[in-house]
C-alpha cells in the first residue's frame, strides 16, 4: 500500500522536483546556520553564482538543441587570460572586442565540427576542452596575468560595480537570463532549437536548417563564456591560466538540475537559473556549516544524481521501472 502510494505520489512531486528540493534545502540550511538567510549572504551567493550562471544559459541552449558543450571551462580560462592580458597592452576598449571575437571563433570551431560536419558533440567539446587549455598555456607561456592599475580602469565596473546596491554581475546575469528566456520561448529561432533538439530528422524534413541552428547555439555558448570572462577578469583583475578548470561540470550540473533533458528538445532557461542558484546555495550552505570546501563536490554529485533520477522517474511514471 505504502509502496503504491510512493509510486503514485512520487512522480507528481518529481515534476516540480527542482522547486521542491530547492525549498527543502533552503529550509534545512536556514535552521543549520543563522547567517544563511541573511540579505548579505543571499546577495553574495547571487553574485558568486553569476559566472557559472551566465555560462549555464549558453550551455542550456546547446543542450536543448540536442548537444553538449564541455569546452566552456577552458574557454573561460582562454577568454579571461586574453582580456586581462590585453587590458594593459591595448586598453579595455580594444581588449574586450578582441577577446569576444576570439572566443566566438572557438565557438565557431565547435559549431562547425558539430553542426556542419555533424561530429559527436561529446568528443568534439571534450577535445576542445583540452585543446583550448593548451592554447592558453602557449599564449601565456604558463605565466599568470594581471592588471597593474586596478583602481584606475573602468573595466572594474563589470565585476566590482553596482547599481542601486545590486552588484553588476547579478544584473548582467539577470538581464541575460531574461533575454535568452524570451529568445527561447517566443522567437522563431528558439522554436527551431527545440525542434532540432527534439527530432533532428523531422526538423530537416520541415525545412529547418539544422546545421545552421546547431552552429548558432555554439556561438551563443561562446558569447556567454565571453561575458562570464569579462565579469571574472573584472572582479579578480588578473587570471590564472587554468581559472576555468572544472567549471564545465558545474555548469552542466546546473543545467541538469534545472531539468533540461540531455536528450535535447526540452528544457528551460528559467529553470536553469533555478538550478544555478540551488547549486550555489548548497555550496554556500556547506561552507557556512563549516564543511571543508571539497565536501561540496560530493554533495553536488549526490544532488545531481537525485535530480536526474526524479526527472526520468517523472517521464517513466514510476520511481523504479524495468522498461524505458
Amino acid at each position, binding site marked *: 500500500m505504502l509502496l503504491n502510494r510512493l509510486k503514485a505520489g512520487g512522480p507528481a512531486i518529481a515534476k516540480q522536483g527542482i522547486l521542491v528540493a530547492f525549498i527543502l534545502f533552503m529550509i534545512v540550511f536556514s535552521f543549520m546556520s543563522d547567517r544563511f538567510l541573511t540579505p548579505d549572504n543571499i546577495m553574495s551567493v547571487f553574485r558568486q553564482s553569476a559566472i557559472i550562471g551566465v555560462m549555464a544559459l549558453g550551455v542550456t541552449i546547446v543542450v536543448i538543441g540536442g548537444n553538449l558543450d564541455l569546452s566552456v571551462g577552458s574557454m573561460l580560462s582562454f577568454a579571461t587570460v586574453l582580456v586581462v592580458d590585453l587590458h594593459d597592452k591595448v586598453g579595455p576598449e580594444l581588449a574586450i572586442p578582441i577577446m569576444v571575437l576570439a572566443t566566438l571563433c572557438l565557438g565557431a570551431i565547435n559549431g562547425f565540427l558539430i553542426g556542419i560536419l555533424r561530429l559527436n558533440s561529446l568528443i568534439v567539446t571534450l577535445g576542445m576542452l583540452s585543446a583550448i587549455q593548451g592554447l592558453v598555456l602557449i599564449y601565456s607561456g604558463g605565466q599568470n596575468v594581471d592588471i597593474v592599475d586596478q583602481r584606475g580602469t573602468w573595466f572594474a565596473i563589470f565585476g566590482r560595480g553596482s547599481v542601486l546596491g545590486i552588484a553588476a554581475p547579478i544584473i548582467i546575469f539577470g538581464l541575460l537570463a531574461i533575454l535568452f528566456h524570451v529568445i527561447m520561448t*517566443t522567437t522563431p529561432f528558439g*522554436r527551431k532549437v*527545440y525542434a532540432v533538439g527534439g527530432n533532428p530528422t523531422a526538423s530537416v524534413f520541415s525545412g529547418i*536548417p539544422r546545421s545552421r541552428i546547431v552552429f548558432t547555439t555554439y556561438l551563443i555558448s561562446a558569447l556567454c563564456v565571453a561575458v562570464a570572462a569579462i565579469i571574472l577578469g573584472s572582479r579578480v583583475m588578473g587570471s590564472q591560466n587554468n581559472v576555468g578548470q572544472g567549471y564545465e561540470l558545474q555548469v552542466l550540473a546546473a543545467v541538469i538540475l534545472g531539468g533540461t533533458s540531455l536528450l535535447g528538445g526540452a528544457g528551460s532557461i528559467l529553470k536553469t537559473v533555478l538550478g544555478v542558484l540551488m547549486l550555489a546555495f548548497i555550496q554556500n550552505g556547506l561552507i557556512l556549516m563549516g564543511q571543508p570546501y571539497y565536501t561540496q563536490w560530493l554533495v553536488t554529485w549526490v544532488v545531481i544524481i537525485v535530480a536526474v533520477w526524479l526527472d526520468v522517474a517523472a517521464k517513466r511514471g514510476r520511481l523504479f521501472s524495468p522498461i524505458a
Partner: protein
Amino acid sequence: MNEKLEPALRLKGIVKTFPGVRALDGVDFEVMPGEVHALLGENGAGKSTLMKVLAGMYQPDEGQIIIAGQPVRMTTPIEAKAQGVVLIHQELSLVPEMSAAENIYLGELPLKSFGRVDWTTLYERSNAILERLNCNFRGEVTVVNLSIANQQMVEIARALTVDARVVVFDEPTASLTDAEKVVLFEIINDLKARGVGIVYISHRMDEIFTLSDRITVLRDGSYRGTLTTADTNEDEVTRLMIGRSLDLSRDTATPTLGETVLEVRNLTCAPLYRDISFSVRAGEVVGFYGLVGAGRTEIAETLFGLRSADSGEILIDGEKVQIGSPPDAIALGISLVPENRKEQGLVLSMNCRDNMTLPQVQNLASGPFVSSSAENEIFDKYREKLEIKTPSWRQTVRVLSGGNQQKIVIGKWLSMQPRVLIVDEPTRGIDVGSKSEIHALLRALAAQGYAVIVISSEMPEVLRVSDRIVAMYNGRIMREFTADLVTEDSLVQAISGIKATEVA
C-alpha cells in the same frame, strides 16, 4: 477443440487511466483455450494499453486478470510470461548483434556451473523450436543478418520457450510477404490445435476473417461487443469499430485537370533510380506503386531537396528548377509528407500547434516574436478542416493516435499552400476508419487543384486514390496506367519486373 469451459485468460472490468485520459473504461475480454480471438479497434481505441496491462507492463486501476480460473497480479513482463502469457510485439524487440538462439532465450539462458552459458543446450533447444516453426535458418545466426520476416519468427520462437497458455500477436503481418504470412498462419493454427489461446490484433480484415473464431471490438477505450466470426461480416465489424459504415467506393467523378505543374525528365540517381520521367497536373493524383526498395521514396526525397540527382531535369510550371535543399523545395511549392511519421514527420515532444507551424515559423513572426495568434489561426483552421481530434493545441503529439498524428503532418504541409503535395505511405499503421478519411482527403485536395503524388505499397490504396498509376520496379518506371485501364494483374506484373508488351 478443447472442450474445457474455463477460459485460458479472462479480463474483467479493466480500467486504466492516464492523466487526462481514460484509456480503458471497464473492458471485458476472454480467450478460450484453442481459440483465436481477434481484438479490433481504431488506433487509440485502447488495444495496446490493454495488451500492456496483460503483459504486466501497466497495472490496471480497477478490474481483474484471471488466468486458468485464478486471479493474478502481474507487475513485469517476465511474471506474465511465467503465468503463460506471452506478447509478440508489433515492433521487433530483438538484440540485433546477438544470435537467434540467444535472443530466443534472452533473460533465461541455460547455465552450467559458475554461471557460464551452456551453449550446447542453448543451440539444441532453440534449433528444436525453430524447426517446429519450419524456419530455414539455425539458432547460431546473428539476428541482424536475418530478414524482417525471419526476425519475426525469432520473436515467435521466443514465445514458445515456455508452455504458453495465451499468445498475443500484435500486428504480426505488418512486415511479412504473402508467402511468409502463410507460414505464420500455419504456426497459429498449430498453436491453436495444441490448446493455446491466441489473441490476434490486426487492422487487416481479410486476415481476421481467415483466422479468428471470435472478434472483440474496442472503441474509445471501452468494450463494444464480441462477435462470432462465422456469423458476421466486415461491414458489421467496421460499423462497431468506427460507429458508422465505411464508404469504400472510388470517387468516380472525372477530375477537371489543370496545367502540368510538375514534370520530371530522365532523372537518375544511380543505383537508386534511373531514367525517371513523369508529370503531374493540377487536380490530379498520381500513384507510385512498387515494392519496398523500388526507388519511389528516393525520388520523393530528390524532389524535396534531400537528395541530389546525378542527372535529369525537374520542371515546375514548365520552368527548369534546381532544388538543393528542403527550403528550396518549399519555396517552389513542393511539400513532402514523409514515410515515417514519428521519425521524419513530427517532433514528438512538441505540441500539436508548434508541429504544424514548424516549416513556416520564420514567416509567422511579428517583429522578433512568433505571433501566437497567427499560429493558433492556422492550427484551428486545419484542425477543423482535417477533423483532428485533440483536446487542445497544447497537447504533445506523442500521445495522439496514429491517424491524428498523420493529419497533423498533412495539415503542416497543407498550411504551406503547396502546389505539389507528395505523400509517402499516407496510411501506414493507421486504422481503417482514419484510412478512408485520409483517402477521401487526398481526393478532395486534388479536386481543389493540388497536384498530388501518392506513394504506396498497398494496392487497394493506390487503386482508390489515383487518377494515374506509375508502376516501379528496381529503380525504373515499368509502366504507367490510367485509372480506368488498370487491372490488378497488370499492376502486379509491372512491379515484379515482368515486361509488358506495350510500355506507356
